[in-house]
């Protein structure tokens, strides 16, 4: 079953591809590069040449539609890395491709268009414009594209409302708290409707409550708008909670790239292991990190055809969904019993359905465990409108909790 149910991200195409990326800060970066490649450590290079090694041989790819988290301690090069995606910093050496196009080869005009329409960014220290009101800050991306004023203000106030700052439009950034400014930065990035969202510690200035609210909102937004998000954090819990995949950065080197479960269950080196050692896995992982595609959904149909489709997919049970979303589980044995009475009856009836409770994709695994008890089925995951988005096999839960 696991083979058939590849996690959704794996099927997606590569959107951003970075290969052989080096970043050395200093006047004669190119001449220091051989030394860096020869494997001298960051401290040695700094002591000998006065140059700072920012990034060293970075290779990674980001898939369309995923939340890709870059994690690492302070000074590990996260902000440096994310600035390469939209070329706020040019690499000392290496390639950056977006949709197969080498963005190092863009002309100035093409680069401006690329930044306007393809990517937007949330900054670690907000980067708001102190001389513009909040609403003008949010509308900035549209303003420089010469979008009509009423149109851009309408769109800006809508995003301002989404991040919970309706009514603050006429204030200046200095009149807002840090967390509020952070959300203005988020609204500003969302307002241009770019496909790729770069977020540099976008939630670190928020208090825990708003923070987890914003995390939920981000996941929801991502599912709804199909954005590709590159998210930086130094908080492992946050990374595990929202990341489809996580890259761990240490002193400018990628230690490991993988799914949250992989990072937790098979850390690549001591550094990653030290990172994840004390994590309460059940609390840290959200249900969606274990979630797999469903291939045994049954629509509202007759008992007979339901048995046929279970046969076809070689399943012992199926998840029944109708227009109102997920309804419950039916098993093959029950269906066969019912078929003896009336093979044309609808499977969507109280006698047949087993009401296996569903969980939401953003809740923690720990909070989902009670729902997994008392039955032997995979755990159905539904989003807010009741739609079934995936299931969590029991074996996965056991594996995470055990080792």
């Amino acid at each position, binding site marked *: 079953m696991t083979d058939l149910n590849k996690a959704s991200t794996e099927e997606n195409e590569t959107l951003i591809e970075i290969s052989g990326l080096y970043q050395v800060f200093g006047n004669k970066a190119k001449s220091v590069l051989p030394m860096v490649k020869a494997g001298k450590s960051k401290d040695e290079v700094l002591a000998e040449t006065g140059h700072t090694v920012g990034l060293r041989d970075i290779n990674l790819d980001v898939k369309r539609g995923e939340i890709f988290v870059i994690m690492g301690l302070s000074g590990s090069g996260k902000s440096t890395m994310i*600035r390469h995606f*939209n070329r*706020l910093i040019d690499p000392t050496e290496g390639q950056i491709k977006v949709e197969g196009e080498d963005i190092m080869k863009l002309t100035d005009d093409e680069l*401006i*268009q*690329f*930044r*306007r*329409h393809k*990517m*937007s*960014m949330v*900054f*670690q*220290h*907000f*980067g*708001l*414009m*102190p*001389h*513009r009101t909040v609403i003008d800050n949010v509308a*900035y*991306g549209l303003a*420089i*594209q010469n979008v009509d004023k009423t149109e851009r203000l309408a769109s800006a106030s809508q995003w301002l409302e989404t991040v919970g700052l309706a009514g603050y439009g006429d204030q*200046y950034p*200095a*009149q807002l708290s840090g967390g509020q400014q952070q959300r203005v930065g988020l609204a*500003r990035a969302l307002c*241009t409707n770019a496909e790729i969202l*770069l977020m540099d510690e976008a939630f670190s200035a928020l208090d825990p409550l708003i923070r987890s609210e914003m995390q939920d909102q981000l996941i929801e937004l991502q599912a709804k708008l199909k954005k590709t998000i590159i998210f930086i954090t130094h908080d492992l819990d946050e990374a595990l909670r929202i990341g489809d995949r996580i890259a761990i950065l240490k002193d400018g080197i990628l230690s490991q790239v993988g799914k949250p479960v992989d990072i937790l269950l098979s850390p690549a080196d001591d550094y990653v292991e030290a990172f994840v050692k004390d994590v309460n896995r059940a609390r840290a992982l959200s249900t969606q990190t274990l979630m797999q595609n469903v291939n045994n959904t049954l629509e509202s149909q007759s008992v007979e055809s339901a048995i046929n489709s279970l046969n076809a997919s070689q399943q012992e049970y199926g998840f029944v969904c109708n227009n109102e979303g997920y309804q419950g589980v039916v098993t093959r044995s029950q269906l066969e019993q019912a078929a003896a009475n009336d093979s044309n009856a609808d499977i969507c009836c109280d006698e047949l359905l087993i009401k296996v409770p569903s969980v939401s994709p953003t809740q923690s695994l720990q909070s989902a465990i009670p729902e997994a008890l008392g039955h032997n089925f995979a755990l159905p995951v539904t989003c807010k409108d009741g739609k079934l988005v995936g299931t969590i096999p029991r074996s996965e839960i056991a594996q995470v909790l055990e080792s």
Partner: protein
Amino acid sequence: MSDTSWLSKFPQLERGDLIAIRKTLDGAYREFSRNYGDTIESLFDPLLTFLIWFEKLLIASPWWLTIGVILAIVYGASRSWKLCTGVFASLIAIGVLGMWDDTMRTLSIITVCTLLSIGIGIPTGILMSRSNRVQAIVTPILDVMQTMPAFVYLIPVVMLLGIGKIPGVIAVIIYAVPPVIRLTNLGIRLVNKETLEAATAFGATAKQRLFGIQLPLAMPTIMAGINQTIMMALAMVVVASMIGVKGLGQPVLKSITNQYFTLGLFNGLAIVALAIIFDRVSQTYAKRTQKHLGGMNND
């Protein structure tokens, strides 16, 4: 036996050599000004026409109209009745003490010098802020402009253009323009890096960054530079009067040679009054337009 006198006495060039150097340089410059002086002077003709027109306008208009216009400008810039009252009182005092015409002359030349300094200074400051190399070249030039005694650079200017308003304006600008250049450069360089990066990240062009982010955020610093420039221009009024610029400077010059203390004091106070008016008005204007900073620094 060798000559060891260079140990006790600085081994300077021969007198004859020095004179030769001076003669060649002076001769060359004199030649240059004889050949091109008129051409260069005619380049400044439009400016001269404007200067004369503006001065005449200020002097020929009825005094109450001039005061009215000045008060309107002061109120427009500062929105402060208190400041208007102060300006009104000083102008009346100046008029009563018989310095109205000279004050108007000085006012006209200072206004023109300030506008020209801003016109030259801000673009230069912008260029300087964009390139470390330009900054490295311009900074020592500014140092020279500010420390070289004004009389020294007056000599070639007078040789070239003779005595009059234009050389005066040039001398004042050379002395007064450095602060606005320096502070424009500084102000732009101090703009928060992430704010500028944000603009870039959203696809702002260089022009949109300059006019939308850098200049507005550098404005408090630039205003401080303009303020300095005005003060320095006023400080040059007396020196400029030595090469024939009429105004409050000439009575001061006269009182030095004739030891008229009171005359000197009154005209000096009139210069101070002008300085304070310029200063307060530009300061309150700057403060009023920077309301968003609300007591915060520009980060």
